[in-house]
Each structure stands twice: as structure tokens, then as C-alpha cells.
């Protein structure tokens, strides 16, 4: 932080002024205005001689000149988003270097609200959260942008699916908007509708776990280098996101990457070196002869006892949790960015290398990203910007989670292995595992679960000022882009594994190639005009989105020893091939009225059609309207302590797209006995299907106290959804299992509260604090079809009840109360969440930040303990709490024992998400050592997920074996444990 120098400079200046006698005289003041945090020049700063009308603005390199009609004067510098700064000048010291400090309160920041326009935060009628680069990545290093949003967005329920390196995160904003889709927000990055799908890896197929949703794959936001992000705007619901229409039902994340700046070229280099270690272990159980006699059948006892005695004699007990998960991961990140430009052309070029290991051997995440953001003024009124980003990510996620029969999951497997049996290889030979189908050490050492992504994201934006006069301005903006992903996955289990040797064709490799191309295009006219004291802004435009996906998976079984090429397989198979396309078209119009920043109203309408709908050419309309009143801006406002008071209300509608294929009734291709066959489908397409629709009304108020040093924001929303898609199960006797129904309706209600402010603002001690609190309640108001259970592993192990009048996150299971009606055991939805963030600056050079999150309530279905109970390895398995002679591991509460209820566990937790301490080296010492070479240097230490407090029995209360789901996103099956990540950082600007 350069504030130190600035203050020193001011002091010096004041002294100087005190000595010099004022004498009326004309001189020209000049200088450069820069951002004090990064030294970037600030263009467009308004500079006024205090008490006069003499004004100028800084140019693109931050330079200004201004005539002063006195011997000394005070210049007032004003810039949106920055603290108004006053500096003294005089004829002898007419050349200034002014550092402006970013305003702590964010009321003046600009928020993108339309598809082609933005608005000052203080005029906003929605609770839109903007997460700045500093908020996002300023404290510690986080692998993915979504992971960096934890605790920073009120209303966001973020869940990490597992601790495997390389992402896999599910964000739900304001509850659920869909019963069948992931209910994940749309992501628009620099105007490109990017792909955030969780693509198939094939792990679940090879390990027998099941469908692709059990792959534990990463959502593809993981590809984006979070350090490139300037800010993320979170449009949480339809009232804010209506103008995005279809696809915005679950909210929108508008991501903007960093831009170039005119002025001196700044080269920044950052390096992180860190370690990862397990955040929490479940613990394993010890064995005794009594336990062996109780656990094993008579025929097995002798051999088990002798193994146990041998282990006791040699004191060779293996804690498999420690052995597999207790490794230290090396975490390395390097970042280089170059930012600069001149009046015509500005650029931001960045490259980053991420190489982060996992706490399981042979797992890790690599990402290489290069970006060039270039903006060029073609003429006075035409500005073109192009952002290009190439990314390669290479992820090894290992073998954890669910499996069936193959034994290829560490956690699933070791749940059954007693600690007196040693699975570790002897002279390269892996002992056969007599307790399960596989030796997990061999799988970890020799298996492959890799995804290699090559991705290119290109966006362009062209702004044309068509017409401008004193009271009006017409702009034309055309923008769009491309997101291309090529994902090569490989899952491999070698032929010499225990389970593979037991197969007719040992050795299994599944190689996938997936390609996805998103393109989008938008054109809009924006007209601003002024009638007396009212500013109007009107925009009309069109949007077109095209999505193409294709994939080919090939599998080889019966592999030659050590070979991974499918041509080396006995059985070679085209495992799957698919292709899908989808096109959406939207038209939008929005009108905004602003009466002197006092009354701000917006009306808008979006019309969308999509070829996945039943009627491809029918437009669906999504209206919006909002009103904000800045009461403190009115003359009648007399309460000085309250510097802002803004009641606001907003309404809007959005849609959730119909998934590709919902209208098809297609014959399946099958092969039998060398003949090609066509099978009648078990699912009938619904040619009348319409998009899911959500409408939301939100109201609340924003208040600023003590010159907006303290801000309070309160929002209440009601989001109702209708036409929700769900499978209507037909009578299975008809040979058809289901068709898609459009009948369900839901209601989400919730509160979001935020209190932030600078608690202490002293020269040597500055403390900024932010407290967020939010909750959401969801209810199915109409189902339209008979109630059903869905998700997880059926009623015996806990599943979800979809029924009118209850929350779809309700967990039910055995015992049945009456035929088909099961006991309610819990609810997956958290009761409420709160986060507390603190930034403290000490002695100007030390920055300390801490972010804590507490999630209250919300139940998980913990099937990891189901497995360890089955294998006798749960800690305390052989205890007998009720003294009835049956060990706890065989008799879990609640009585009557061993129902689904035993696995439904409260997942309340407290996590310290981020903590960081940084020291900015004083410029003097830098200059002494490096001359003018180094502009700024910062070192620090930080941690991510450093602390977890929970009563939950599991590696992490955040887990989802089924990945990103609307429901069933809280099922715990032997996941990859989460890591605590600690870093050392160095950041140098040249």
C-alpha cells in the first residue's frame, strides 16, 4: 500500500506550506493521479481548485494541468469509487504526484444491470453483490473462482463436492429454482456465456459407482484463472437477472476480467508456495480379540486372530486414513501480468502457472493460463476490445467416492480393512486384500483418473457512439464471443490389480473426448437522454446463443500388461457417442429513469425462444420492474448521521431452459449377436414442454451511516417457480417409464442482511469489518403428480421426499410409517448461514484478513459411516453404549435401530475460510536495494480452510457424492478429504 508515502508526502507538503507566505499569483499546477494500491494512472479524475469553478480532468495517462489564480490553493480530486482527496499546491511546488485511495464503502461502484448498461450501486434497486479482485483473491490462493466466493455473497449456498484437487463446486443462489436441473447460476465472462458443466470423466463407469454424476468431476469454471478476475457480480435471482431471460433462473454470475490502463507499464509477478494437509480425519477403530470374535464368522476367526496376533507381536498396525490421506501436498502458483497502454490502446496480458498437489498421492491440479485483454480506440467514438484466454488444465483426482464391486475407491475400500492387516507392497508385490475386492494401495500407485482440458475463450466488444449532444447520446454496442473446450479424459485400472485379475478381461481403460463450443452474439442500442431533471436510459437489443456439445468415449478391457492404448485391449468398445446442439434467441428492451439520483425506476422486458422447447418458435416473455428511492438525497432529509437511506423494490421473471432431448421419442441403438437393433424408448418426449419459470419480488433497504462509513443492507425476497420440470412416472406396465412433466411449483423465501464498515480508521490501525447473514426456506407449493422419493440410495439409506407442502430437501427413509410413507429424518437445507470478514491494516504496511463462515443446520446423509460400520472400522465401533451386548457399530440410534435415520446427521459447521497476513516493503528500502526497478513488493502468509469446527462425523460437512445437484447434493460416500492449505506469498511490481 502506497498510502504510507502519500501521508508522508502530505505532511511534508503541509510543513512546506506553513513556511511559505501566500502571495497572490497565477501559476499552472500539473501532475499525475494514480491508484495508491497498484500505482495505475487514473484517467477522468475531476480536479477542481477549491472554492473556484476552475476544473479539469486527468487524461488517459493520469496527467493533468490546471491554472490557479493564486499563489497557493487546494485541489479537490474526485473520482468514482475513490475517496475524494484534497491536496495543497503552490507556485513552487506546482507538480504533484497524487495517490488516490479506493473508497472503502462501495456505494459508488458501477454495477452492470442491463445487458448493455450499468448503474451506480447507490442507485441500485437490487441486492447485487459485487466481489472485487481484492475480496476474491486478496487474502489467500484458492484454486477456483467459485471456491473463492465462500462467505462473500449473502444468499449463496456454496458446496464443495469433495476435497479432490481442481474444483467441483455447486453454487445455489436463493434456494432452488429447479427440481431436476443443477440449479446452478449462469456464468457470463466478459460477455461470453461460458460452459460451467461438470463433464463426464468416466471414473464412475470404470469403478462401477454408477452414472456420470458420481464421477466426482470438476465444474469447468475451474479453468478460469481467478487472478485474472477484476470482479464478479452476483445477480441472485430473477428480479435482478430478468434481462438475461432463459438460463437465469438460478441467478447469474457476471465475471469481468482485468483491463489495461494507460500510463507506465506495470509488470507484476506473484509466487505462492504452499502446503496442503488434511483438514479433518474421521479416525479409525482399533481391534481386539474380543472384537474379532464378535465381528467375523466362526470360520474366519482363526485366521483373523493370527493376523491380529502377528501384528501385535511386531507392533505393525496401519492407520489407513493417515497412510492414504495424510500426505503433504505441494502447492505452487506463479503469476505474471503486464498492464499498460496509452490513450488509444490499453492492454492487460497475464500468464499463470498452477501446480498444486493433493493430499492423496498421485493426485493434483495443474493449470496454465495465458490472457490478453486489449482495448483500442479506433476513433474518437469507436472502441473495440478483445479478450483472449487460452487455458490448459490437467487434473488427477484419484480414486475415492462410490464404487461397486471393483474396490477402486480408497475410502470405500479401507472402510473394510482392519488396521492389523498390511496392504502395503512388499518388494513391489501388493498383497491381495482379503477384506475387499481390491488393494487400494495398488490402485493409488498405478491407477489413472485424469482429465486434460484445452480451452479457448474469446470475447469481443465494440462500442460505437453514434450521436451525442448536450442532452442525449446514442450508442451502439455489439459484443459476443466463443468458449471452446476440448476435454480428454482417461480412467485406467491396470490388468494386474486384484479385482482385474478376477475378471474375464483384466485391465480397463476408458478414454473420453468431449468438445463443447458456446458462441454468443449480442447487439444493442443504448440511448441516454435528459428531460429537465430526469435522466433516461433506454436499451433495445437482441441476443443469440448457440451451444454445441459432442463426445466420444472408447473403452478397452483385457489390456496387455502395462498398456493403456485401447488397441492393446482384448475387448474394444465404443462406449458412448453423443452430440447435442441448442440455440436460444432473445430480444430485450429496458428503460431506466433517474430523477436526480433520488428516484430511480427501471422497466424491462425480455422475450426468448429456444429450440429445445416444445414449440421452438414461441417467444416467452420475462418482464422486470424496479424502483429505488434515495431518501437521503432529498432536501427534506435532515438526519445527518444517516448519509444514505434507500428503500427499494424489484420484480422480475426468468426461465430455466428445457434440457436437450426432452421433446424426443427416439429409438435406441443396440447390438446383439452381431445384429443392429432398434429399441422402443422407455421415455416419451413431451412436445408441449415449456421452460421452467421463476418470478421473484425482492424488497429491502440500504442505509449508510456516518458518511457511509457504516453500511447496512437488508433484503427480503420471495421467489416462486412454476412449470418446474420433473419426471412423470407412468405405469411401468406400459413399457414406458416416464415423460417430462411441467407441473411443479415451488416457493423460496429468504432474508439477506449485511453490515459493513470501517470500525477504526487511524493512521496506524485501520479495521474494516463485514458481517453477512442469510437464510432461505423452500416449499413445494404444487406438485401436479403423485409425491415421490428421489435421489441418494433409496429409502433404506435416506432419500428425498418430493411432495406438495414440504421442502424438496426433506430427507426421508425407513422405517415406513404406512405403505409408501416414510419417516422424515432431516432436511438438507441449512437453517441459516453467516459470515464475518475482517481486514486490519497495522502500521500501514501490515494487512491482516480473516474470513469466517458459520452454517447452521442442514443435514447430510453420511454413508461413509454406513461403510465403516459395515467393515467394523468406525471409531468406537465395539463400544456398547446401552450395554445390551450388541456393539454400537451394529446398533445405531435412533431406536428402533438401523433405520435410515442413523445416517442422517447434522452438518452444522464453523470454518475459517481465509486468513492472510501481508507485509508491504517500504519503498525506501526497495529503492535502496533495487533502485527504481521495483515499484512495490509484498510478502505474506495465508491459509485457506484453516480451521473446521463441527460435530459432523465425516471429513467435511460439505460433500456431495452426486456432484452438483438440485437435490441430493449432500450425500457423503467416502469422499476425497478436504485439505487445509497454507501459503507463503511474494508479490513484486516492476
Amino acid at each position: 500500500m502506497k498510502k504510507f508515502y502519500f501521508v508522508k508526502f502530505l505532511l511534508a507538503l503541509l510543513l512546506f506550506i506553513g513556511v511559505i507566505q501566500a502571495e497572490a499569483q497565477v501559476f499552472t499546477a500539473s501532475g499525475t493521479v494514480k491508484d495508491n494500491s497498484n500505482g495505475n494512472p487514473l484517467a477522468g479524475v475531476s480536479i477542481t481548485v477549491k472554492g473556484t469553478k476552475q476544473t479539469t480532468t486527468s487524461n488517459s495517462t493520469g496527467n493533468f494541468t490546471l491554472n490557479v489564480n493564486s499563489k497557493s490553493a487546494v485541489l479537490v480530486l474526485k473520482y468514482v469509487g475513490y475517496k475524494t482527496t484534497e491536496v495543497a499546491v503552490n507556485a513552487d511546488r506546482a507538480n504533484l504526484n497524487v495517490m488516490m485511495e479506493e473508497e472503502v464503502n462501495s456505494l459508488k461502484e458501477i454495477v452492470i444491470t442491463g445487458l448493455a448498461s450499468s448503474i451506480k450501486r447507490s442507485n441500485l434497486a437490487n441486492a447485487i453483490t459485487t466481489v472485487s479482485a481484492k475480496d476474491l483473491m486478496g487474502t489467500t490462493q484458492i484454486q477456483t473462482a467459485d471456491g473463492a466466493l465462500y462467505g462473500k455473497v449473502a444468499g449463496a449456498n456454496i458446496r464443495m463436492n469433495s476435497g479432490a484437487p481442481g474444483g467441483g463446486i455447486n453454487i445455489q443462489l436463493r434456494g432452488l429454482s429447479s427440481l431436476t436441473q443443477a440449479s446452478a447460476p449462469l456464468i457470463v465472462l466478459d460477455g461470453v456465456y461460458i460452459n460451467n458443466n461438470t463433464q463426464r470423466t468416466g471414473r464412475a463407469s470404470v469403478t462401477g459407482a454408477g452414472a456420470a454424476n458420481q464421477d466426482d468431476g470438476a465444474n469447468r469454471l475451474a479453468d478460469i484463472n481467478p487472478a485474472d478476475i477484476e470482479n464478479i457480480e452476483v445477480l441472485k435471482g430473477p428480479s435482478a437477472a430478468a434481462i438475461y431471460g432463459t438460463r437465469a433462473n438460478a441467478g447469474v454470475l457476471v465475471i469481468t476480467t482485468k483491463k489495461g490502463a494507460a500510463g507506465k507499464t506495470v509488470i507484476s509477478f506473484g509466487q505462492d508456495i504452499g502446503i496442503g494437509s488434511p483438514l479433518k480425519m474421521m479416525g479409525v477403530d482399533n481391534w481386539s480379540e474380543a472384537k474379532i470374535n464378535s465381528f467375523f464368522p466362526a470360520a474366519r476367526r482363526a485366521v483373523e486372530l493370527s493376523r491380529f496376533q502377528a501384528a501385535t507381536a511386531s507392533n505393525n498396525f496401519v492407520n489407513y486414513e493417515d497412510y492414504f490421506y495424510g500426505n503433504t501436498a505441494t502447492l505452487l502458483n506463479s503469476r505474471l501480468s503486464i498492464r499498460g497502454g496509452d490513450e488509444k490502446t490499453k492492454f492487460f496480458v497475464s500468464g499463470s502457472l498452477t501446480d498444486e498437489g493433493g493430499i492423496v498421492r498421485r493426485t493434483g491440479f495443474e493449470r496454465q493460463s495465458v490472457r490478453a485483454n486489449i482495448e483500442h480506440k479506433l476513433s474518437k467514438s469507436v472502441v473495440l476490445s478483445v479478450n483472449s484466454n487460452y487455458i490448459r488444465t490437467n487434473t488427477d483426482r484419484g480414486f475415492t467416492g462410490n464404487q461397486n464391486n471393483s474396490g477402486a475407491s480408497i475410502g470405500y475400500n479401507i472402510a473394510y480393512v482392519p488396521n492389523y492387516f498390511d496392504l502395503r507392497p512388499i518388494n513391489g508385490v501388493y498383497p491381495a486384500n482379503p477384506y475387499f475386492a481390491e488393494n487400494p494401495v495398488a490402485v493409488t500407485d498405478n491407477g489413472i483418473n485424469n482429465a486434460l482440458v484445452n480451452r479457448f475463450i474469446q470475447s469481443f466488444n465494440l462500442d460505437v457512439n453514434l450521436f451525442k449532444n448536450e442532452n442525449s447520446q446514442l450508442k451502439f454496442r455489439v459484443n459476443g464471443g466463443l468458449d471452446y473446450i476440448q476435454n480428454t479424459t482417461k480412467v485406467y485400472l491396470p490388468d494386474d490389480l486384484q479385482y482385474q485379475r478376477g475378471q474375464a478381461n483384466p485391465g480397463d481403460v476408458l478414454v473420453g473426448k468431449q468438445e463443447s463450443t458456446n458462441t454468443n452474439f449480442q447487439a444493442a442500442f443504448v440511448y441516454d437522454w435528459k428531460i429537465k431533471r430526469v435522466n433516461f436510459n433506454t436499451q433495445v437489443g437482441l441476443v443469440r446463443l448457440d451451444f454445441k456439445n459432442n463426445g466420444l468415449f472408447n473403452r478397452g478391457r483385457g489390456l496387455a500388461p502395462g498398456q493403456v492404448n485401447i488397441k492393446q485391449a482384448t475387448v474394444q468398445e465404443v462406449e458412448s457417442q453423443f452430440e447435442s446442439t441448442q440455440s436460444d434467441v432473445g430480444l430485450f428492451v429496458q428503460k431506466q429513469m433517474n430523477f436526480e439520483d433520488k428516484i430511480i425506476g427501471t422497466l424491462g422486458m425480455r422475450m426468448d425462444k429456444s429450440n429445445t422447447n416444445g414449440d421452438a418458435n414461441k417467444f416467452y416473455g420475462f418482464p422486470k420492474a424496479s424502483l429505488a428511492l434515495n431518501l437521503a438525497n432529498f432536501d427534506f432529509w435532515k438526519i445527518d448521521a444517516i448519509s444514505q437511506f434507500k428503500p427499494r423494490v424489484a420484480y422480475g421473471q426468468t426461465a430455466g431452459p428445457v434440457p436437450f432431448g426432452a421433446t424426443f421419442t427416439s429409438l435406441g441403438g443396440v447390438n446383439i449377436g452381431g445384429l443392429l437393433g432398434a429399441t422402443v424408448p422407455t421415455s416419451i418426449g413431451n412436445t408441449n414442454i415449456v421452460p421452467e419459470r421463476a418470478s421473484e419480488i425482492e424488497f429491502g433497504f440500504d442505509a449508510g451511516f456516518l458518511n457511509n462509513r457504516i453500511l447496512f443492507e437488508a433484503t427480503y425476497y420471495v421467489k416462486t417457480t412454476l412449470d418446474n420440470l420433473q419426471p412423470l412416472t407412468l405405469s411401468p406396465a406400459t413399457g414406458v417409464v416416464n415423460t417430462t412433466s411441467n407441473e411443479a411449483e415451488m416457493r423460496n423465501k429468504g432474508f439477506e442482511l449485511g453490515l459493513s464498515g470501517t470500525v477504526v480508521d487511524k493512521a496506524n490501525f485501520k479495521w474494516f469489518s463485514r458481517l453477512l447473514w442469510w437464510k432461505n426456506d423452500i416449499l413445494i407449493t404444487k406438485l401436479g403428480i403423485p409425491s415421490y422419493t428421489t435421489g441418494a440410495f433409496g429409502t433404506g439409506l435416506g432419500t428425498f421426499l418430493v411432495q406438495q407442502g414440504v421442502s424438496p430437501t426433506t430427507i426421508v427413509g425407513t422405517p415406513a410409517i404406512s405403505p409408501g410413507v416414510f419417516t422424515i429424518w432431516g432436511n438438507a437445507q441449512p437453517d441459516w448461514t453467516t459470515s464475518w470478514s475482517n481486514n486490519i491494516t497495522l502500521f500501514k504496511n501490515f494487512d491482516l484478513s480473516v474470513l469466517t463462515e458459520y452454517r447452521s443446520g442442514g443435514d447430510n446423509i453420511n454413508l461413509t459411516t454406513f461403510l465403516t460400520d459395515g467393515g467394523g472400522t468406525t471409531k468406537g465401533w465395539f463400544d456398547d453404549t446401552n450395554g445390551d451386548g450388541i456393539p454400537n457399530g451394529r446398533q445405531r440410534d435412533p431406536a428402533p435401530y438401523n433405520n435410515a435415520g442413523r445416517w442422517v446427521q447434522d452438518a452444522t459447521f464453523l470454518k475459517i475460510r481465509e486468513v492472510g497476513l501481508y507485509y508491504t516493503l517500504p519503498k525506501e528500502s526497495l529503492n535502496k536495494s533495487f533502485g527504481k526497478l521495483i515499484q512495490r513488493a509484498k510478502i505474506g502468509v495465508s491459509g485457506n480452510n484453516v480451521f473446521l469446527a463441527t460435530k459432523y462425523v465425516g471429513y467435511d460437512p460439505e460433500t456431495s457424492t452426486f456432484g452438483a445437484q438440485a437435490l441430493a447434493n449432500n450425500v457423503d460416500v467416502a469422499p476425497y478429504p478436504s485439505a487445509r492449505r497454507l501459503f507463503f506469498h511474494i508479490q513484486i511490481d516492476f
Partner: protein
Amino acid sequence: MKKFQILFISSFTAFIFACNPLEVKELTDPNNPSQESVSNNASRRQIQFLVTGLEQRHKGYVTNVSQAWNTFGREIWYLNASDPRFQTDWLGQAGRLPDAAYFGFGATGGGSYATPYQAIKQGLILIDAANNTPLLTVQEKKAVEGFSKTIMAYQYLIPANFLYENGIRTDIKDPLNPGPVRSYTAALGFIDSLLTAGYEDLNNAGTTFPFTLTAGFNGFNDINGLKRMNKAIAARVAIYRKDWQGALTALNLSFMSLTGSLTAGPAHTFAAPPDGFNPLFYVLDANINTIVVVHPSVLADTTQGDARVAAKFHKRTAAVTVTTDATPLVGTHQDKRWSVNTAPMPFIKNEELILIKAEAHAQLNQNTDAVSAINIIRTAAKIGNYTGASTKDALINEILYQRRYSLWAEPWGHRWIDARRYDILNTIPTSFDKGTIFKQFPRPQAEINWDLYDAGN
């Protein structure tokens, strides 16, 4: 610098008119043909694809029925360490009884209910497609119809035996308006008449079957062969209906041969992908913990020297142990019937037909004929001629015993159905697994839900 504005506006306008960005293409499935494409004027190849599709659907039930029903009748245990519910739920441990969404069957009844109905649906679509195309002769249409009805009848037996007294739907043509639930007796009557109708169709179908069937139908892939297969299935239905004379009549027109190979019969085929492997194949002595093992009661009850025991059961070098929260299960023997994972699996075979003949004769008190049929089986098993009493009860006991070994673990659950037919489910031992013997399954949840939905609309 107006030239840029003009340039951009004009090129943009040109773009808009050149490729209308408001136009979206109507979607058709890029991966599969539509079902509609075969409903009228289907080509011969399309009919062939549907015929092959029916063969595929015809084997859909095999895995689930083999694993589950043979567990219910305690012919096997399906040991599965990855999911204890294959033990706890399927064996009815701790008094568990099937509910409408039971593990392994789900809300639709899965492989024992929804899947066979999908084969029936395939048959209906195939018949319609054949009848709605001018490219097939009347005889060819009849051939397709007769084949389809025969397979459909076989498939109807699966849900009928699964739900037993709870009854099944037989009229399923309209997916949004399925017919009423009919009793087991009525369903069997319907199945019998469907077989008869199929037989009549085949009678009018000439001599050659106009489409290609897989090698599983070798010996049965002409009209005569299909007719004999139809009557074999009819004989099985007849004994379920206690129509003993009908069984004998059907047998006479079936492929039963008192001197021929006992294993002769039409089979489900299996092959490497894109086909599927034989789901009952396990590598001998594989060090795995998911495997079908021979139920201890089957091993305990063997007759000294029974060739079937030697041929079908393999004593493992190491037992498979699976622990559940009721009791550990130890499997000492595994299934040895399949030499390779592509071995075909007969779905009805000569050995069963001879046992049906024995049973029908015994029930009709034609003891000599019954005994001679029994002796064909005993001779083949190398256990000598029958020497027991010639009372009806004794003979039936003997026949049921022979069926346990002759038809062991076929994809049908013969023991479970036989024990139910003779009301001796209580004689199936549960001492090895502390379980419960199920009588039948309730109607699947999806059926109950459909009735609710239907009543509300």
C-alpha cells in the same frame, strides 16, 4: 471519423439480413431415429432392427431375475460386499419384507417388472410397424406377429410371477391409459391365449422366418422351430395353470425330445461389446467379493454322484465371506455353468420340458409315464433310476427335487415359483442367513402413483 460508424452499422445490417440471428433450427435427435419413423411404411431393414431390438429387450430381465429370484428361492446367494442391501434386503434379514420401492427393484419394479414390459412394448410396436408397411407380405406379417406374441407371452410371465396374487395389467397398448389389474389366474389365461394367437399367426406364416435372428435361435429360426418354441412356453404356462392335460398337449407340439440333448433350447446370446457379456459369468476362484455362490442348502441336499453337481458347482479355493449386520455369509461354491463370458443362456430347454411331462403325468396319476420321464433326467445325472414310492405326492416331491438341480439358477427362479405352486415356501431353509422367504412383491410404487395420478385427472 464517421466512416467507422457507417462501416459498422452497414456491416451489421448486412449481417442481420444475411444470417437471420432470430432464426432457430427445429431440433431433431442427431443421435437416434425417431419412433415415428417406423410407425408407417417402415422399410424391411427397419423391421429387422425392431426384430433384433425385441431380442435385446427379451434378455433385459436376465440379470435381475437370476440374481434376485434365485436368492428368494435360496438356490443361490448373490454376495455383494459393496452394497449390503443385496444381503440384508434380498434375504429379508431382520424380518424385512418387500415394499413398493424395494431395494434392487426401485419404484418401477426394475428388471422384474418394468423391463419385461419394455419387451412387451417392443413387441407391440414391432407388430404395428410390420402391419403398417406395404413392403411385407401377409405371410411375413404373420411371421413377425407370431414371433412377437410368443416372446411377449414369455415376458408377461415375469411380472405375473413377481407380483403373483397382486395381479398385473395385461392391456398396455396406450401408455397414458393402461388397462386394469387382473388376477394371476386371469393373467395366465391371457398369456395362454396370447401364445395360442401367436401359434395361429405362425401357422399362417409359411415356412421360413423372413428376418434374421441371432445364433441363440439356431434350430428355432424357421416357422416350425418358432412354433415348437411357442408350445414349449405354453407347456410351462400350462403347469402354472394346473392344466396338466394342456401341458401334455403343448409338449407334443413343442421341441421336447426324450432322446435328444437335455440342454437343447432357444437361448439368449451374449458377446463382447457392443453386445453384452453373460451376466452370470464369474472367473473361477476370482479374488473378488461380488459373486453368485451356491446356496448351502443346495450343496447339503445333493445326491451322491450327481453329475449336475459336478457340472454346475465349483468349489472355490478360498471361500467368499460377506458380513452384514445380521450374520456373515460364507460362499464356498460358485457357478461353473459358463465356460466363457460369451456363453449363451437357454431360456427354456428340453430338460425342463421332460420334467414338465413328468409332473403332468404325475398329476394325472399316469405314474408309469411320470417315472419314465423322471428316469430320463436321473439317468443323465448318473444317479440311477427312481426307486421311491409311486404315489402322486412322492413323485411330485421327486420331480421338484430334480427340478432344483436340473433347473438350478436358471434366469427364472424356478425353485421360488415351484415352492409357491406347491405351497411349500416354508420348507425353504432360512437358517443359513436368518432371512425371510418372500411370497410375492407388492405392486410397484410407480403403479400405485399412476393410479393416483389417473384418478386425479
